[in-house]
Structure formats: structure tokens, C-alpha cells
């Protein structure tokens, strides 16, 4: 563990107990994020990405959700041992969060300024007047040219991209150490997406925050991230630097994801797809969870869940194909 480590997630298990069934939405996730690092968490819908991020924030709807096991350490302090009251001080102050739906993430009855001021008044003990002033500065920072007027406007007066900028400003208002962005660009136009991603990078550099970006868009990953965690069936199946992952993907699932990405230079008639869907979280197959959809699957795959091994330096894979190898390439 380097002393640059900001967030450490160890053996996180978040289960949902619904009608007697146990949905293992997150089932033993380990990863860490260094200070100032941008980490992407990718995977299909239903792979447990969002639940992982909500677990870090402890915003899992409970019941039915429950963090069963594991530790989430922010600067060595275990967040799971904190009381709800202490956790409220972490949210918004140490960890900021941006959501997928900018259109509905702002309260329609308050002005932009009032909403931006709220975390600063709460966490930094600012009075309302100072917080409003700071809100104007923040809006300028995220690219509002007439910020003085925007603070007095209501969410319905802004477009989706604008609202996402406000959300970023709000998440950054207390200078958090970690910014969690849950599909921040999914609901936006492609042209706006690039702007928002650039903005997040700018803001990150300015405050030296780490970013955990959750997405199913590998284009976003390529553009932003230092490191990538690929998630499938509530587990991390591959953990590698972004460059490594794109040039040398190991896990058959990662390979499948990369192949199903459209490529302008390539003149493929049809995009490739991974057959089948993510298994429901209450009914995972025995052994490797990807085995039923994997073209390399063999008998041994269904016997035990493979371990996440460091196959090459800083490149972890959870696949039986690489279990005996120590650096050999396919």
C-alpha cells in the first residue's frame, strides 16, 4: 500500500434481500484509487457498477440493500464503521458525486445559487452570502459566462449540459478528495459529452481530486482514465492501466466489450456483440460467471470462481486461461 492511496475497497459485498432471494449485486470487489488518479469502472448494465459507487457513498436503499462484508477506507479511515451522522459529513465534503440524469438531479423549486450554496453552508460553515459569492466563482469555473445571472435562475431554464455543469460545480464545491461520476455523460448529446469530460479533467487538475468514473462507454474510458476496472456479475474481472487494457485485453469479456465498440476506420458491416445477457444477480452460475457467454469456456470454468490474479505487473485478470501464466502473452 503506497501512501498515495486515497481510497481502498476490500472484499466489498453488497447484497439485496428481495422476497427470500439474495441478489449479490456486488460480490467481493477489491480495488484502490490513488490521489489524483482517474479510474474507470466499466461493464454492462446490471454488472454492479452503480451499486459499487453507491456502496462507497453508503446510499444503498436499505432495506432491501445491505453491505454485508468488506471495508471501504478513505485515507485509512473505514467509512463502514462511521455512524450515519458522521457519514453525512463525508458525503459532499470528502466525496462528491455526479449522477447520470442531469435533467432531474436538481431540485426544480430552488435557484441554481441556492442549491450550489447548500453543501458549502453545511460542510464549511459559510454564511449564505459568502456561499452565494463562491457559487458564482464555481459557475465561472465550470464555464458559465454569465454566472451572476445563472445563480438566480431555476433548473428548468438550463439545458441538460448546463445542468450537468452545475452538478459538477456542486460536487466540487467543497473541494472533495474523490469525485464519483456515475455515467455523467450518458444522458447528454455527443458534442456536450466531450465538453463535460474535458471539464472534469480540468477541475480534477485544479483541485488534484481523484475521479471514479462509472460508464459503459469505452470511448469515455479511453478519453479520461488512467486505469480501468472491468466489472462483470458483481466482480472485477480485469484491472489494468487504460493503455494496457486497450492494447492488450486479457479477459474474454473485456475482449468482447472492445470488439463491440464501433470503429470509424474499420469497415465492419455489423458490430460484434457478446451473446446472451448478464445473469441476474440472484442466480449466478457456478464457477466463472462469464462462462455461459464465453467462447473459450471449458469444463474447468464451471467448477470454481477463478481468482483475480496479477498476471503482468499492474494487470489483474480473473480468468482460468491465465491462471498458470506469469507474463506469457497469448
Amino acid at each position, binding site marked *: 500500500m503506497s501512501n498515495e492511496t486515497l481510497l481502498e475497497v476490500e472484499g466489498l459485498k453488497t447484497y439485496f434481500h428481495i422476497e427470500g432471494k439474495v441478489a449479490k449485486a456486488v460480490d467481493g470487489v477489491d480495488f484502490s484509487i490513488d490521489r489524483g488518479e482517474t479510474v474507470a469502472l466499466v461493464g454492462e448494465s446490471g454488472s454492479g457498477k452503480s451499486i459499487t459507487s453507491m456502496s462507497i*457513498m453508503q*446510499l444503498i436503499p436499505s*432495506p432491501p440493500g445491505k453491505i454485508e462484508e468488506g471495508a471501504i477506507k478513505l485515507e485509512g479511515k473505514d467509512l463502514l464503521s462511521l455512524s450515519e451522522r458522521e457519514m*453525512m*459529513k*463525508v*458525503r*459532499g*465534503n470528502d466525496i*462528491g*458525486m455526479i*449522477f447520470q*440524469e442531469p*435533467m*432531474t*438531479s*436538481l*431540485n*426544480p*423549486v*430552488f*435557484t441554481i445559487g441556492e442549491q450550489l450554496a*447548500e*453543501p458549502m453552508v*453545511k*460542510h464549511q460553515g459559510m454564511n449564505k452570502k459568502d456561499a452565494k459569492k463562491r457559487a458564482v466563482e464555481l459557475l465561472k469555473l465550470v464555464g458559465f459566462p454569465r454566472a451572476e445571472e445563472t445563480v438566480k435562475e*431555476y433548473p*428548468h*431554464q438550463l*439545458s*441538460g449540459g448546463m445542468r450537468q455543469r452545475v*452538478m459538477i460545480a*456542486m*460536487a466540487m464545491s467543497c473541494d472533495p478528495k474523490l469525485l464519483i461520476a456515475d455515467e455523467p455523460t450518458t*444522458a447528454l*448529446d455527443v458534442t456536450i459529452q466531450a465538453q463535460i469530460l474535458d471539464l472534469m479533467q480540468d477541475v480534477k487538475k485544479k483541485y488534484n481530486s481523484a475521479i471514479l468514473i462509472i460508464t459503459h462507454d469505452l470511448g469515455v474510458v479511453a478519453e479520461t482514465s488512467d486505469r480501468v476496472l472491468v466489472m462483470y456479475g458483481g466482480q472485477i474481472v480485469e484491472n489494468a492501466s487504460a493503455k494496457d487494457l486497450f492494447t492488450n485485453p486479457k479477459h474474454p469479456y473485456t475482449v468482447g466489450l472492445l470488439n463491440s465498440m464501433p470503429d470509424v476506420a474499420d469497415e465492419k458491416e455489423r458490430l460484434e456483440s457478446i451473446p446472451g445477457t448478464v445473469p441476474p444477480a440472484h442466480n449466478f452460475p457456478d464457477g466463472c460467471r462469464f462462462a455461459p457467454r464465453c467462447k473459450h469456456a471449458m469444463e474447468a470454468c464451471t467448477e470454481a470462481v477463478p481468482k483475480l490474479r496479477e498476471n503482468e505487473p499492474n494487470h489483474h485478470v480473473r480468468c482460468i486461461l491465465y491462471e498458470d501464466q506469469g507474463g506469457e502473452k497469448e
Partner: protein
Amino acid sequence: MSDHKRSTNEDSQHPSQPPEPSEGNEMTKKEKEHSPTRIVLKRFLKNKMAVLGIVLLVLITIISFSAPLITDHDPTSTDMLNIHADPDDEHLLGTNGVGQDNFARLLYGGQVSIQIGVYIAIMVTAIGVVLGSLAGYYGGKVDGIIMRFTDLFLIFPFLLMVLTVVTILEETSLLILVVTLGLIVWPNITRILRGTYLTLREQEYVLSARSIGASDFRIIIKHLIPNAIGPIIVNATVIMAQMIILEAALSFIGFGIPEPTPTWGSMLNEARNLGILTGQPHMWLPPGLLIVLTVLSINFIGDALRDAFDPKSKSRSS
């Protein structure tokens, strides 16, 4: 103008946008410049019936509460030598069976009706907001307990309860009537507001409020009540109108505020005599008319508020 057009087009590219006041009509530009409260107010004032309702209600309220300035007669003083008098200069609407001045009773009676309506609406709304928001926001066990408790009151034979309370206590006062009627109608508004909160708590902005560290209490009070203000106000007006009628009905059958306090309902009570019903309409027509006008005004206001708060229904009202 061109600026406005551009932003409207941009909005229409997002089908997931909630139904907010930005439909592409001529109101859009004006509305965009105002806060939600001002938008509602503006739409409300466009409704002519609602404005008429407000004017009437304010007029009735002012006249009722300035009764001592308008008439010299004491509505409670009896004059056994001058009963069932026809209208004249002294008694504008004649006198009743015990010689009380009908005009004075009409004016003072309005005070009771309006007070009953307002007090019960406030009391019931307060109970409804507290219990409804707790049940709707927390859900689960809290919801279960509050809602079963509410069901208990809903199945209670309330008319029987009022009659029993009034009979037992003999001396019914305004306070007792307000509390009794309030206890009867609160379950309805609680259920409605619980439903509203159930929808609201799923909104993304609740999650984003929690993600910046807001407490449950703060979310309920600061983030959700302003968003639920539409249903809250609309239901308050409905209850106010209902309670004015209920009070009149109770007074009519003799279980309202007892004599000698004048109420519109007890004035109607006199019309149970066939001679008065056919021969002396000046005794019962004015209170009846005033009850209808008051309730109608409140209902117009309530309807207009409902339309004003709900952007999708605005075309219907104008």
C-alpha cells in the same frame, strides 16, 4: 427571441425531461423569466373564475368579520314581542322565531363558517403533511404503522362519532367542533400526501441532496415540501369547502355550535317549518345562498390552483 428559440429546441432533444413549464407555446418565454411560484401565480390569475372566487371570498370574509360595524343589532339578543317579523328598516331580513335579527345573524354566522373552514384546513393539513411525509419518505415499517393507523380512522363511522361527542359534551364550542371534525378528515389528506411523497422521494434530486450530505429531516422539510406544495394547498381548499358544508349540515340537524351563537346552518334550521319555507324565503334564502357562494368560491380557487400547479392541465382552465 432567437435566443429563446434556440434553447427551446435544445430542450426538445431530451425526451426524458420532466413535465416542466417549457412547452413550446407563447407562454414559454414569459414563464422562463420567472420563479416557479410566480409562474403558478400568473397562471392562477389567468383563470377568471378563480379571481372571481377570491374576490367573493375576501368580500364575504371582510363583511362577516366587520359585522359589528355594519349592524347595531346583537345577533344573540331575543325579542319575544317581535318574532317572525317581515323585513323592514329596523330588521333588514326580519327576525326569527325568538325575535333575533336575521341580518345580524347572517353577518355573524359567516364568522363561524369561515373560522371552521380555515381552522380545520390548517389542522388537517398540518397532520397530513407530518404523517404523510414520514410515511411516504421512509416507507417500510414507518409507512405500515402510520397507514394502518390512518385506516383505523378511515373506517370509523364519523357522523356517529360527531353526534356522540356533541351529545356527551353538551356544550359544543368552536374548538371542540374543529378538533372533532379535524380528527375525522385527516386520514384522507394524509393518504394523498403519502402518495405524493412516495413519488417525490424517487426523484434524482433527493439522491443528489443525500450525496451532498443532507439529512433526512432536511430533505423532507427543505427539498420535498416545496415540491409537494401544489397537492398540499389544493387539498387544503377542498377540505375547507367540505368542512363549511359539514358544519352547516350539523347545525341544520342541531348538532353544530349551539344557540345562541349564530351560524348559517342553524339559520337554515328554521326553514324546517313549512310556513317559513313557503312564506318567508327572506329567512333561509340568504344563508343558503351564502353557503353556496362561499363553497363555490373556494372550489373555484382550488380548481384553479390545481391547474396552475400542474403544467399539463393548463389548457383546460382557460
